[in-house]
């Protein structure tokens, strides 16, 4: 039996424990009108297992689902209608970008960055978060730039630079 199969067996055996952990988050999220059923929690654990497998990663311990729930529950872009779908996408996105960032960022920092971008420049758009902001973060980390460094050079930036040059001369 290879390591992946062994870990998957262990993950499945710990499924009940993980589901309980997710259900416990309802105590916090209830205040924002967000709750998950047992069925939803099982689905989220399944998504985690399939994402890990798709991204060729293994996980020990409780994982990050509860952390993602606790971080995103107060977002104004999440309501009960899109709550579970958003969580599924965020979990997939998280493991994909753990690989893309070459594990150079910790779980907590990545979740915080995702939350900041989701509530900020992405204005609740998961497409923008995955396709632009996280891709930018991955590129910056790989090339050793600052996390928020951007290569978008707007006309305002150009004008500011010209103004600076004029002042210098």
């Amino acid at each position: 039996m290879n390591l992946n199969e062994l870990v998957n067996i262990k993950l499945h055996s710990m499924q009940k424990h993980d589901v309980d952990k997710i259900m416990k988050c309802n105590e916090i999220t209830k205040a924002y009108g967000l709750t998950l059923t047992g069925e939803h929690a099982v689905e989220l654990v399944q998504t985690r297992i399939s994402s890990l497998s798709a991204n060729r990663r293994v996980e020990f311990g409780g994982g990050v689902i509860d952390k993602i729930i606790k971080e995103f529950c107060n977002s104004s872009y999440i309501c009960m209608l899109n709550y579970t779908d958003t969580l599924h996408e965020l979990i997939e996105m998280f493991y994909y970008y753990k690989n893309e960032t070459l594990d150079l960022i910790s779980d907590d920092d990545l979740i915080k960055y995702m939350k900041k971008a989701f509530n900020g420049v992405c204005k609740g758009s998961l497409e923008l978060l995955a396709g632009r902001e996280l891709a930018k973060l991955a590129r910056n980390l790989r090339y050793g730039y600052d996390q928020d460094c951007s290569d978008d050079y707007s006309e305002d930036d150009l004008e500011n630079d010209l103004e600076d040059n004029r002042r210098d001369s």
Partner: protein
Amino acid sequence: MENIERIGTIKQEVLNGEYYFKSLLREACKFGMLCEADLERINYQCLDLLAYKTGKYNSGDSSSIRIETAESIMASVLYTVGLWLKTFSHPDFGVKAIKEINIRDIYQCGRKRIDTKLKAAKHFHLLALRNKIDTDNYTYNATILDGINGFFKLYNPDYGAQEIHITADYPVCVPAHDLTGIEFIQKYLESFYYENMLCSCFAKETIRYLLNGYNEGYRDLVFNIFELILTTAIGCKICGIEAKTLSISKIQVEYLYQVLSKKSKDEVCKTLWLAYSELKKELSLSSVFLDQYIQKSLEAIASNIYHAMKMNTLDRIVIVPLYPKIKSEIYFSLGIKMADELFRNIVEEITECRFLSDKISIIKGSIHSLSDMEDILLAAELNADEITAVLSLLELIEVAVLVKRHPLKADIDAIDLSKQERVLCYGLNNYILSLTPDDQSWIDNAINIIVFDKFLGN
């Protein structure tokens, strides 16, 4: 009754040295020493240990890890566990330990064993460096100096205990098959040390001549120096000559061929053993460990010799040393230059002369060293004919020195030369062509052996 071995279920020979733990589990299952429940428990204990190691690897920053990294950490864990299980006198005791002791505890014991082995390997490296062969073989030097240091720099006993990192290109005579990680390096360095120990019985020059005899380009070849020396030394002993100088001749190699060609493999082995005991006496080899190492090497050497006899290639393994030819050299000093002021006056005087005879008489009277003559030839604006006339005043050796310093170059190479330098080169060439063939060949030979006297700054 010397080797009493416990009769056990699992045979030591069938176990894999590289993946010892896995192979032990496989054999234990085969003989029913471990049941399904035992295997499941071991799997979970290994997984728990992996989870713990992964947490430490990520420093608690990340809960997940890439499969490749996890596999590598797992391989490191299994290797470390196997390292401790190897310490049992019989594999059956190892299986008993797996059943009774938690894998994490076995791992801790293995980890301590790695530390001990690491210390031992570093010690052997130090010893091997102390008795290193003074040779310019690239692979030998690169491995013992850079390669091994690189290993100690990169080796990570916590997460990559099974890694070797380096290629260890220099082949030792008794290779460490079936081993990996620190076990391999320790064994490799041990072999290196014993090989150096034997080689240090021979003079540096003796080894160099032998390696030259093997191949004049030995500096860039990948081969084992110890094996070559030991084989030739044993060849010397079979011929009844002193082995210390390794000075076996072609006739003696032919004699060896006659002695060994009619013998079976066992008889060849016996002859080698006898010759080795002679060699031991001559070189006063007293180390028991070196003796054991050489005995292991002799098995390979006996096989090599036997096959070389069959293929008629004995001269490729019993090497006739190649001694350097004595090369004659001519040390030449260009002499001391005159004062600048005086030199300028002479140049001025020569350039003002109308006739060649006047110029030559000034040169004859004022120039007393070849370095001044060379400067005059370059500075006095002489044409090619005048240069030829001046050169006729010189001895052949002096002309050879000037040719060595101003060789005639192809037009493309002469592009950097000044006009006067080019005129001098052509003048020298024309002058040589005007000489007799004997003189020309004498100059050709002299050019090759002229050495300028460095102490005079030439």
